[in-house]
């Protein structure tokens, strides 16, 4: 895939006995919004963190622009022009809004130009329809949505080439969500690559060009957003469409018709707690429930 701003090949990452990502590929072209979707714990945030330099990958290669890169820390990612909104926001609660927005990107100089920074903060927050009483309160005093707005505003400060958004609208109100979706479209129009993780199919359909599905830490299909139905995506997410991903054997035994179809089976499961979670999967390193070790 030539012309990609970002291309991942064979990315793997394990945390102890949990294989969070196995052999994942992903491509983003300039001016493209790629939605990464998947069930809870599918490895979406892990993927974002690897790109942002938070975790080093255990295996796999990352190509950025024209060359292979090693992202060994967040500073590397920033240097490459990758801006990230983390799912857990990663704000410093003891700093005020301005402090958080400009953290690590304060204008150089002997003395911080607080006035310019404050003006720019209002501007950025205004662009996102933010609803913040003052930019001089510590972030600890903000509501969940207000914090998320701050985190998103942060990512716009530098002049990124790729923006990673991990569930950026989860805590946002209706107006703010619309604003962020607009923003994503504007970023795309400016030729940036955007990766957006989301559980909200409506949001995905609204802005994504392509939809990459992760399932149990593996690729489970990439769809062109315009050509796929919401049901297909959901099927890929929940595993009913496992065969949509080449090289995977269908391993799911539960019904996959969301939402109500799964309820019964889930409840049935409560009668007999699982042995080892991974015992039914034979095509990947098992994610084993740890031995019943007592703390």
């Amino acid at each position: 895939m030539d012309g990609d701003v970002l291309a991942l090949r064979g990315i793997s990452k394990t945390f102890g006995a949990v294989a969070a990502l196995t052999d994942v590929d992903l491509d983003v072209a300039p001016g493209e919004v790629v939605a990464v979707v998947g069930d809870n714990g599918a490895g979406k945030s892990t993927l974002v963190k690897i790109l942002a330099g938070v975790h080093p990958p255990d295996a796999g290669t990352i190509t950025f622009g024209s060359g292979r890169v090693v992202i060994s820390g967040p500073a590397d990612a920033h240097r490459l022009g990758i801006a990230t909104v983390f799912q857990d926001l990663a704000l410093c609660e003891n700093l005020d809004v301005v402090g958080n927005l400009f953290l690590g990107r304060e204008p150089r100089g002997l003395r911080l130009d607080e006035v310019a920074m404050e003006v720019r903060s209002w501007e950025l927050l205004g662009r996102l329809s933010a609803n913040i009483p003052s930019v001089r309160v510590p972030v600890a005093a903000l509501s969940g949505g207000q914090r998320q707005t701050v985190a998103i505003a942060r990512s716009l400060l530098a002049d990124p080439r790729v923006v990673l958004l991990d569930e950026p609208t989860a805590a946002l109100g209706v107006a703010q969500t619309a604003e962020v979706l607009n923003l994503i479209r504007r970023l795309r129009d400016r030729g940036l690559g955007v990766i957006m993780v989301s559980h909200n199919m409506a949001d995905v359909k609204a802005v994504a060009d392509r939809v990459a599905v992760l399932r149990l830490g593996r690729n489970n299909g990439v769809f062109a957003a315009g050509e796929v139905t919401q049901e297909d995506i959901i099927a890929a997410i929940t595993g009913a469409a496992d065969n949509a991903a080449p090289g995977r054997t269908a391993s799911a035994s539960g019904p996959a018709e969301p939402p109500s179809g799964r309820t019964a089976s889930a409840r049935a499961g409560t009668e007999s707690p699982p042995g080892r979670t991974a015992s039914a999967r034979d095509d990947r390193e098992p994610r084993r429930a740890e031995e019943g070790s007592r703390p």
Partner: protein
Amino acid sequence: MTELRTRPAPAPPPGGLRAAARTTLDRVRGGDLGVLPVVAGLAVIWTVFQSLNPIFLSSTNLVNLTLESASVGVISLGVVCVLLVGQIDLSVGSISGLSAAVMAVLYVDRGLPAVVAVPAAVLLGCVIGWVYGQIFNRFGVPSFVITLAGLLGLLGVHLWLLGPKGAVNLPFDSGLVRFAQLAFVPPWLSYTLVVVAAAGLFASGHAHARARRAASLPAVSTRWLLARSVLLLAGLGAAVHYLNRTRGVGWMFVLFLALVLALHYVLSRTRYGRAVYAVGGNAEAARRAGIDVRRVYTSAFVLGTTLAAVGGVLAAARLAAVNQSSGGGDVNLNAIAAAVIGGTSLFGGRGTAFAALLGVLVIQSISSGLTLLNLDSSFRFMVTGAVLLLAVGVDSVARRSRASHGRA
């Protein structure tokens, strides 16, 4: 994975020793090393000192080491409790000195029996912790400051109490002093205790595994449990045998071990212990879960000061005297450092009762190893610092690999 949990198939019990070994290996690869790194650090210290002076690992010296560890170890155990809830107690040294003084004054000067004097001293420790808790909860003064004030104020009370005498001898033939200096577990009993411990470990593990299997949860195999118990039996048995070649295992050390085990039980198996970890990890979350956070703080302070008082009484009994410098010097720093070296976090929520045991063994091993080398004080200090750093460094490097595996 829902589809997995929905399978009604019961979990097959993992297959014996090999599976257990694999689990253990998995854990090590995953960075979950438990106390292993500290033990490795300890091994480094022991090797170094043994090579410098072969008396270090002699039975006599190890008996000394156990006895010297007990009093600071008990104090450190209290510090672990306070650190676990994310607070600090700088006054454990002063409290230990004060409780020793109170005990001595009641026992020697007033002539009260030990069964009155000792509980009175311990009770005093208890009350001090309660007062700390009240001040902390009501006024929100940082525990650093409260216990700093305690450090100073209680030292004053201690000096005032000893007052004109300055120092009090505990008679060498009193039960208290004999307990701390000359009371050793008879060999037959020490071996019995080892067997009981190993059997207890097996029994509790087995019962737990059976319960898990009954609930179709995965459980460790009986063979692994057996192997573990045999390992414990062999290790403890050898240690006890070695100590028994001279004086044997001191009752004071047994008391310390018993306190460690008791605290371990409380912290890991009771609601209260859960609450302690929760408060240390996220006090606001604990409060929202309906835990009476204030009571947990108070109880942690009380545990800290009470154990400090017990440690003070033990130290006095071992020295057979109480004077103005009892509980002074580096008792404070050693007790806190032992807890930290053993892996207790200063930020709360992380650590176990075994931290006190391992930490105090590290500190006392260094100290004991140095007494056998005829060094100037200046070199003595330098070597202490260097060895401490080395021992904890081993631990930290191992833990760091653990953190990089995502288990901070």
